[in-house]
């Protein structure tokens, strides 16, 4: 394709209009930044952006309302984890019993290697006990690789508390919905 270019007139050939235009634009921007303080930069550690709901940050383990570990060491997340970042050590026969009453066991050790984690959210999706959630933290810092492998205590303390087991409520709603469907005549 041949682009039709208008020949420059004498005034334009002097480059002067372009130079003056450039001076004006740059001065305007410098004025806006220096005097009016209209800066586009967000100075990160002091200012942080608001994360959208459903943001997939680092996965942490959560506790229930009675401060018990929710995880039952089913190892589904370990199995589903694409980069194999999760490693669960089950309690075995001799290990500690579960914190809460209606659970069989809890993990002896639960490690997430945050250097491997890709924040995909499969662990949260697959967890039957709603024990692991991708939370809002995206800034994970450590001085060594070892430090970046988060163990059970760390994950639990970072994860906080998500009370109530919602899955039975959801199941109940599902069951009720199924009972009412197809509509009885």
């Amino acid at each position, binding site marked *: 394709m041949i682009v039709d270019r208008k020949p420059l007139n004498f005034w334009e050939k002097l480059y002067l209009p372009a130079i003056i235009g450039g001076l004006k634009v*740059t001065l305007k921007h410098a004025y806006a930044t220096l005097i009016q303080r209209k800066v586009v930069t967000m100075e990160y550690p002091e200012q942080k952006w608001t994360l959208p709901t459903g943001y997939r940050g680092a996965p942490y383990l959560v506790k229930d309302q009675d401060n018990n570990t929710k995880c039952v060491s089913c190892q589904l997340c370990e199995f589903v984890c694409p980069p194999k970042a999760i490693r669960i050590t089950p309690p075995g026969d001799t290990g500690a019993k579960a914190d809460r009453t209606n659970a069989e066991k809890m993990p002896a050790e639960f490690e997430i290697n945050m250097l491997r984690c890709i924040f995909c959210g499969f662990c949260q999706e697959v967890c039957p006990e709603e024990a692991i959630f991708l939370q809002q933290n995206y800034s994970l810092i450590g001085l060594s690789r070892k430090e970046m492998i988060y163990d059970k205590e760390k994950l639990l303390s970072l994860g906080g508390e998500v009370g109530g087991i919602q899955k039975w409520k959801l199941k109940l709603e599902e069951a009720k919905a199924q009972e009412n469907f197809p509509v009885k005549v």
Partner: protein
Amino acid sequence: MDWYFIIFSAVKIAVVIGMVLTMVAYSVLAERKISAWIQDRVGPNRCAPPFLKYIPGGQFLTRLGIFQPMADGLKAFLKEDFMPAGVRKVYFWLAPAVAMVPALLAVAVIPFGSSLGGQKMVIADLNVGILYTFGIVSLGVYGIVLAGYAANSKYPFLGGIRSSAQMISYEISMGMSVIPVLLIAGNLNLSQIVAWQGTHGWLVLYAPLSFVIFLVAAFAETNRTPFDLPEAETELVGGYHTEYSSMKFALFFLGEYSNMIGSSSMMVTLFFGGWSLPFWGLDHPATTLVAGIAHILVFIAKMLLFMVLFIWVRWMFPRFRYDQLMDLGWRRFLPLALANILVTAIWLWFTSSK
């Protein structure tokens, strides 16, 4: 040999080199800050020494990035000095020095003040000051060409070729543009040109076209935008210094900024009255200490204005295409400069024949 002369010259050299290097470091900071302001950013504002709380106004200085050049310098020294396989070693080592040294040498003949305590404020008061400057500055191209040749790599090679063609072309226009100035002032000695301007008024009023050509050629000579083809980042990665790292790279960088300082001082000296100001009685050589210091400050202030112009222009214009660059140099500025010489000469002939 006069011992006082040697001692005072050594002191002047040390002070001037120190000042120039400091200014280079801070003009890098100025470049970053001004570019940030033009692009709606904040620029470097984090670097702070550990003893910051003992410095008054330390927070503000940190926001200004005053401590950034120290970190930059330290970084340049601590980085790995990597030499790619297949470079021509002698030239590879030589090139950064050849780029840096002429830039510093050119400052030697610049009168940066009138006199201070009976001492002339110029390192070498040469009678052929301008010729010396042109001779030295044209050596600067060898640094770039050698760098391009020695790296044994395509991008630096292209950068070196471009730079040699560009600098040779614009040196001619630059040299031609100064001749009217010499005709009017009737002298090659920079100190005396400044003294002439003190009594007769700034030369930019007598030879504005010369100034414009000199300004544009100075941009081309220092490889600054819109003539930064030798290092065109978008086309040639880094141009002639693509293969350089660590302090060798920093030397090219410093060389560029010293060249800018040299060009700015030349423009101030030749066209804007050097250390002289037409008011407050600063237009004749200083007899008191205060006036001497004032002259030096006036010179530095004028020079810094030109430095700001250099930096400002970089963030304003796109790069010229190579053929446009050559066209501008050979077919516009060279005839203009020649015509300028002719017109000035005829004018001088008519005015002086009375």
